[in-house]
């Protein structure tokens, strides 16, 4: 079963439909045990970093993710859900601690026109499993903030991360694949057939 964490953020409905498109059993839930034990857990998120963090902590997402990591179960963060996996979010001069699975701070993109809105290309990490078959496709982004540096944590129990990069005003992290933990800054659930393929690839990891 694929669980989509319902903590009051994001267009959960389209995520639910997109993840069940290839026959997976999908449940929108904030049940603590279900979220810990699901084969895959999706953490959506739109809007402000601080608001999302508040919702996530209210539903003990930090504990849920740690428990899943220890069991080597797949978790996928999307958009602000992806951003919250980093150490900090810096929005409008307010710095909010994130879930801290990865080092780094989410900051405003240095682009003259924001949000970064629309379909963009990605510099996909070599041997990416997530992007297998859709390396050259465009994916749908809508965001003004992103993690712009990858800082490998030498003490992390996770194996070396595959980082895929976007570029809008400067380089930013478009996707991370790091053992049981993955994230996309773009919206695969809104990225048409390319997004469907990426979701299929991720669900294959959950089996």
């Amino acid at each position, binding site marked *: 079963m694929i669980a989509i964490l319902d903590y009051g953020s994001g267009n959960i*409905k389209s995520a639910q439909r997109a993840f069940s498109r290839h026959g997976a059993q999908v449940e929108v839930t904030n049940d603590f045990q279900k979220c810990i034990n699901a084969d895959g857990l999706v953490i959506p998120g739109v809007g402000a970093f601080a608001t999302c963090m508040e919702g996530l902590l209210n539903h003990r997402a930090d504990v849920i993710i740690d428990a899943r990591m220890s069991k080597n179960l797949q978790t996928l963060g999307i958009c602000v859900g992806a951003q919250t996996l980093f150490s900090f979010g810096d929005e409008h001069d307010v710095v909010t601690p994130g879930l801290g699975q990865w080092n780094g701070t989410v900051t405003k993109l240095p682009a003259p026109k924001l949000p970064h809105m629309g379909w963009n290309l990605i510099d996909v990490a070599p041997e990416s499993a997530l992007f297998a078959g859709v390396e050259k496709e465009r994916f749908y982004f809508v965001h003004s903030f992103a993690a712009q540096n990858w800082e490998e944590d030498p003490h992390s129990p996770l194996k070396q991360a595959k980082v895929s990069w976007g570029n809008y005003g400067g380089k930013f992290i478009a996707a991370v694949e790091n053992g049981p933990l993955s994230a996309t800054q773009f919206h695969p659930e809104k990225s048409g057939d390319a997004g469907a393929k990426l979701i299929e690839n991720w669900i294959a990891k959950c089996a």
Partner: protein
Amino acid sequence: MNPSIRIIPCLDVTEGRVVKGINFTNLKDAGDPVEMARVYDLEGADELTFLDISASTGNRQTTYDVVGRTAEQVFIPLTVGGGVRTVADVDKLLRAGADKISVNTAAIERPELLSEINQHFGAQVLVLSVDARRGATASSFELTTHGGTRGTGIDAIEWVKQACDLGVGEILLNSMDADGTRAGYDLEMIQLLRPHISTPMIASGGAGALEDFSRAIDAGADALLAASVFHFGVYRISQIKEFLRSAGYLIR
């Protein structure tokens, strides 16, 4: 690198049906917005826009149903506008499956609505729809309401600047002079607005020839909205995208 130019078909919906002329031969039901959304998705639409033109709020329930059914089948961004007056309206549409909401008249009457929506949901869901025409204001473009039939005396450029300060994520610029003419987008208005805003801009109104699309991009539009040229089958979306791609524009 910039994202690709977005081509956005717009469907006018009331009581669960698409209105305005639709002339498609490959549809089982030309009035069903879900069926039309599917066809446009297959043809390569980068987003979809529904405009709820229901006269009464009682009829808007059917629009939520349409949004929900569309979101179940079409996996590209969906913007819904028309009659959005409160944060609660936005919440309902987002829950139904919309990704973005466009706000028009209600924001003119009460600009704080924009900052309220921004605070609740973020700028990325908030599209400001601007109906403007040539008029006797400072920029010579005047904000209108009621589909361009009523002037407000408000300068369109000043209004957009104010709205951007309140936290709008995108501008949908509708030319009431060009709308329905198929004589081309209002390039003068697009060019005039562009330097004043730092958000993406969707140009709307007047699309007729293939070159109209590239001219609007050159004038400063990030996305191009059209209705009748698609509904009447003048061009398929794929034709427009092929034309733009061969002219060197970034196209999905």
